[in-house]
């Protein structure tokens, strides 16, 4: 493929994802608003539809405070590292047959690598801010992300066993055809583990301890303001998108649906991803926060043994049947 065509695809993907990020915040505020019997944003545009644009413009023009005791380079780069790594993970996601920037054979491994890289941004921010709240937030985030990374990696081994590939397109194709072909049915336990680990990896409620506002102000992003804060925010929402897409691809058959949609083959994929996003937000409106020792206990003492047992059972079943 010509490099210009590739660049064109990248620009389109990036624009769509940034639009998604903007409206995901609107989606979240509206849903939480209605779940708490409020209206959510209503003022800017019809039913607040222009609110994300207004927020973006506001963040862009806000003062960028860099406190005097920070490690300037790390402090300035941390949001960019987070965002770039998460955007990089988008490259391997197949949105529809052929709609993928890089159809590589190690897709799953690459996504793990990129989500691990994104947590460097958080740790860098926590360390370089030179503030107690940021430091504690960064530490907590590091310990939490690496603990759940193992559970997530092990839970997806079941999917690899069934599909025999790390390539995300192949994984989707292995599930398409019938409704019962979706890996959610044979791998329901793996999906449960994956789902919990996904919430923890993206630092969402009930595992949002790195930014627990009741005790750590805003965690690693305490010292950030203006556009730098907005970039951290974007990275978090792109991360949610990547994890939702990964769940859709590995357990819900990606782009395959009950009937093919003309002109927009990615429709089923988008609907499934948004269902995931809705559950993310629903959980945020419902669940209280975990305590830190409970979080570590859940990750190390429950999810990891369960994931190992799931691998063994899947492998034995594959030999027997």
């Amino acid at each position, binding site marked *: 493929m010509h*490099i210009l065509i*590739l*660049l064109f*695809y*990248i620009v389109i993907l*990036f624009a769509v994802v940034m639009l998604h990020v903007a409206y995901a915040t609107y989606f979240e505020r509206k849903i939480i608003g209605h779940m708490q019997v409020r209206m959510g944003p209503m003022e800017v545009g019809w039913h607040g539809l222009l609110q994300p644009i207004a927020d973006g413009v506001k963040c*862009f*023009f806000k*003062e*960028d*405070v860099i*406190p*005097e*005791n920070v490690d300037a380079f790390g402090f300035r780069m941390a*949001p*960019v*590292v987070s965002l*770039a790594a998460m*955007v*990089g993970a988008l*490259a391997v996601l197949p949105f529809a047959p052929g709609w993928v*920037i*890089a159809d*590589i054979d190690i897709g799953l491994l*690459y996504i793990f690598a990129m989500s691990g890289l994104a947590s460097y941004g958080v740790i860098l921010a926590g360390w370089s801010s*030179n*503030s*107690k*709240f940021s*430091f*504690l937030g960064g530490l907590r985030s*590091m*310990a939490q992300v*690496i*603990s759940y*990374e*193992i559970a997530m*990696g*092990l839970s997806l*081994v079941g999917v*690899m*066993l069934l599909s*025999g590939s*790390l390539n995300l397109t192949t994984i989707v194709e292995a599930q398409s055809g019938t409704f019962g072909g979706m890996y959610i049915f044979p791998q329901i336990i793996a999906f449960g583990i994956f789902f919990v680990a996904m919430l923890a990896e993206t630092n969402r409620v009930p595992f949002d301890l790195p930014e627990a506002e009741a005790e750590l*102000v805003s965690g690693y992003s305490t*010292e950030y303001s*203006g*556009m*730098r804060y907005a970039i951290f925010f974007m990275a978090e929402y792109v991360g949610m998108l990547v994890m939702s897409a990964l769940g859709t691809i590995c357990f819900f058959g990606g782009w395959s649906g009950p009937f093919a949609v003309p002109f927009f083959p990615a429709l089923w994929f988008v609907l499934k991803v948004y269902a995931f996003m809705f559950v993310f937000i629903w959980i945020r409106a419902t669940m209280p926060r975990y305590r830190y020792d409970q979080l*570590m*206990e859940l990750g190390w*003492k429950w999810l*990891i*043994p369960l994931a*190992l047992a799931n*691998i*063994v059972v899947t492998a*034995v079943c*594959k*030999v027997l049947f």
Partner: protein
Amino acid sequence: MDFIPREYLGILLLLLFGSLFGVLTLFIGRFFRLSRPYREKLIAYESGNEPTEEPRMRFSVKFYLIAILFVLFDVEAIYLYPWAVTYDFLGLFALIEMLLFIFLLLVGYVYAWKKGALEWTK
């Protein structure tokens, strides 16, 4: 552009694009946003008080332990990936090999548990 496989060229470009977006928005924003720093604004946030002592204080050794355990378990998880992908070709032999491997992993895991490495509140 023969020195990079096409698929990886896409990844490289997307990564560059992502970082350029971040750097450029921040750089262009410099010319538009105001900047009125004063001393109180520039000290680290500590609930409105003057910051006491160094923020990079001594922290729990548990974090270090978790990091070490992570390295062990993640390497072992990585060994499972190629096994899972080639499982169809290798069959029963691979199953027995992997059961042995997971058994060894479990021994280490139980040891770490019994030693109290997984207890956060001790």
